[in-house]
């Protein structure tokens, strides 16, 4: 592979207490591409995703290496807050804060101590444009984010994540709570975002993976079964389990 690698996972094991949920996963996520992680419920794909920016810290024991710019971020002395600013996350449900649209977008920036009004204004516009929400909300930036529709709220959450300028965006089933129109808007957004960001997305929706992802990883029962270009995984899977899952024999 000549692809540039944004994040490399090596021998990742995750356990909740005594229960092992992810075993021996090794993966290289290509930079500025969309990688979809698919698999049945309980296959461990969300757990892997949440381990990538240490969101599992309090819940699970994560062992193995997660290399980011040649540095293993899965070490106790790593500043997880800095990690999460570099590797942002968007969740299943839209999670706007009960503030104005504007304040939501710059939340992370304010936190980092940015005060310059011009910088903030500019970043709000830029992030909302990137999340394809600017045209819909540019006249109501001071209004509550809670008044937006579910799809708009989710794009707002994407904008909020973009505003801190992460390198990688993790998405945990970002459209599972949305209607088909909002879903396709978000998918279009993702395709534009990959020019600048690396996107790693967990999805239950096979069409979504085949439509938007460049790479697909199939997980089953805590193990990585197959990883490759999306077209190859869907058209010509190398493993029987992958073929069975894609044809709906289980899942």
């Amino acid at each position, binding site marked *: 592979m000549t692809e540039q690698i944004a994040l490399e996972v090596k021998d990742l094991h995750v356990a909740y207490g005594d229960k092992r949920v992810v075993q021996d996963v090794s993966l290289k996520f290509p930079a500025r591409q969309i990688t979809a992680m698919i698999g049945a419920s309980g296959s461990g794909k969300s757990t892997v995703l949440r381990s990538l920016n240490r969101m599992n810290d309090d819940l699970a024991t994560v062992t193995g290496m997660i290399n980011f710019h040649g540095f293993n971020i899965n070490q106790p002395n790593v500043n997880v807050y800095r990690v999460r600013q570099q590797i942002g996350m968007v969740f299943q449900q839209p999670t706007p*804060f009960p503030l104005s649209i504007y304040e939501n977008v710059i939340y992370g920036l304010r936190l980092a101590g940015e005060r310059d009004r011009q910088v903030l204004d500019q970043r709000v516009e830029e992030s909302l444009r990137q999340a394809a929400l600017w045209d819909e909300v540019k006249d109501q930036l001071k209004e509550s984010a809670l008044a937006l529709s579910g799809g708009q709220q989710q794009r707002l959450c994407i904008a909020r994540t973009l505003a801190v300028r992460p390198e990688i965006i993790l998405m945990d089933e970002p459209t599972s709570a949305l209607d088909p129109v909002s879903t396709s808007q978000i998918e279009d957004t993702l395709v534009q975002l990959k020019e600048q960001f690396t996107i790693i997305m967990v999805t239950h929706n096979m069409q979504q993976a085949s439509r938007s992802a460049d790479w697909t990883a199939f997980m089953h029962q805590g193990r990585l079964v197959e990883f490759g270009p999306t077209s190859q995984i869907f058209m010509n899977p190398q493993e029987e389990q992958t073929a069975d899952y894609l044809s709906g024999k289980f899942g």
Partner: protein
Amino acid sequence: MRAEKVDKIATAVVLSLAGLVGLLIISFLGYLLVVGLPNVSWHFLFSPAESFKSGGGIRDQLFNSLYLVVLTMLVSVPLALCAAIYLSEYAPQNRLTATLRLAIEVLSSLPSVVIGLFGYLVFVLQFGLDFSLLAGALALTILNLPLLTRSCEDALQQVPQLQRQAGLGLGMSKWRVTTKIVLPAALSGIITGAILSAGRIFGEAAALIYTAGQSSPAISYTDWNPFSPTSFLNPLRPAETLAVHIWKVNSEGLVPDARAVSNGSAAVLIITILAFNLLARLVGYLIKRRLAK
């Protein structure tokens, strides 16, 4: 057919029992107000109590009750809030925190008379606070802490887990998430809980008889120096509260109009507690509305 009949009977039984409870409470409240309100006048509210003559008021007792609530809240809200934040946001699920929760549970069902005697032994005698507002406030804090901690914890738990995750996902520290996201969202519930608990301790008597005392020495409302023994603000003066006053007038009152005084006091007490409850709702509603804007 049979299931339908059973359903009808069950509904009728539940409804009539609920009605009975409602009727009991309303007639009790109604009785208190009907018998008590005619004794309440501006004179009654704003003149000091008499020891032997009739025509005394409840000015000092009413003020003492309110002041004691303020003092108690000053001590108990920060403690309860910190405990609730720990339990809700930080506490791991282990035997130690389970024990802690059990202790809070047990403390919440401790009879207030026991708390009063404990306060007498520890605050009044051991700490040398004598019968004082401060000793009373500390006793009421013990009474108040478990329920207030619980209501604060509930308010914090009401904040969706996703909001916390969203904050963490942006790179916020746990403390930041707690103070910037969870606390503001839980504020309405916390304040409502605090005001409701204020109403509860406002009517407390048993825990105060041996801590805040049963006497009301003459106090001056123009003396703003809290260290002066006659100042109304002095937390170290003994202070009979309204609820204690009702108990005392009834049990050993020497005034000829003891009945009228205690009936009037009871009505004032009930109305004040009602006001606390309405205030709690109003504040909760206003904060929610401001957040939704």
